[in-house]
């Protein structure tokens, strides 16, 4: 982690806002506008060629800003990890930039943080729900989603038995 911090301090001074201690090591805190630059530098300069996961956190009533998006990268050659924290500026309309063009693995992970947390991912090629069904209202992992809320059971919108001679 200190290598990564040193690289950014040398080539992109001021990009890393904070080095925060987390449960498994340290995390680099950056601002949302710098996400794509950081991801590009991690991929091209520092050899972090694999995106492990993207996670979103809702700190409603506990911290400001309310939402945070976490990115986990892995360097396959050197077997090192880096954890990037992106506090999302706006609580009403949380937005981050897509990194799907840099890391294709981000595609579904970004759809998931949209589906579950309602984080808008700008520039995503296909920002649809991934886990909940079409027609679901709201984002169920937000802290203000009512725990007892149940939505109508969806109806099947596909024909399970394809017509003879047709393949979808």
């Amino acid at each position: 982690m200190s290598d990564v911090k040193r690289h950014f301090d040398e080539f992109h001074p001021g990009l890393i806002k904070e080095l925060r201690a987390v449960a498994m090591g340290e995390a680099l805190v950056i601002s949302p506008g710098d996400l794509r630059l950081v991801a590009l530098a991690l991929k091209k300069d520092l050899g972090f060629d694999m995106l492990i996961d993207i996670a979103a956190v809702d700190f409603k009533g506990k911290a400001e800003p309310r939402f945070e998006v976490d990115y986990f990268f892995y360097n396959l050659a050197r077997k090192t990890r880096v954890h990037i924290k992106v506090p999302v500026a706006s609580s009403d309309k949380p937005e981050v930039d897509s990194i799907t063009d840099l890391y294709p693995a981000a595609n579904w992970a970004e759809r998931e943080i949209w589906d579950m947390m309602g984080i808008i991912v700008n520039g995503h090629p296909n920002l649809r729900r991934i886990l909940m069904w079409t027609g679901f209202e709201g984002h169920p992992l937000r802290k203000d989603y009512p725990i007892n809320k149940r939505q109508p059971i969806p109806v099947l919108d596909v024909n399970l038995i394809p017509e003879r001679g047709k393949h979808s």
Partner: protein
Amino acid sequence: MPVVQDLIDQDQGLFGDAILTTRVDDVVNWGRKYSLWPMPYGTACCAIEFMGAVSAAFDISRFGAEVVRFSPRQSDLLLVMGTINYKQAPVLKKIYEQMCEPKWVIAVGACASSGGFYDNYNVIQGIDEVIPVNIYVPGCPPRPEQILDAVVKLQKSLSPKTEALSGE
């Protein structure tokens, strides 16, 4: 027909035990009773218990329900084993609708019966929200003996002199 009845009345010895009078429904149900063809709809650990119930140690064929079919059109007993979520509920309903009459449903385990401990936004609280259920089996997961017990209970409900517990 009166001729036959007269013959029986006149001389019991002519046909002896070779003829007995009954209702067609009773005979048909008696035949169905020991040839239930189950279709497993397994989504969770209860399906593993069903594998145990089918295999040598517990051997569901002792009770005449061993012809497991993986097509709803060839089976008359739907065994729903596992958690059914909102996105899957319409698929389950479609599969139930594809089964020919008469048909019966056993909800195996806490999740299929009541949602289990998944009292949340994405799990339906018992499959009876979607399809009719004849027998509920408790347990998380139930023992294979409990699945056998459910089959025996269903067979008893099909016995002559008992109204068939049809799902409709």
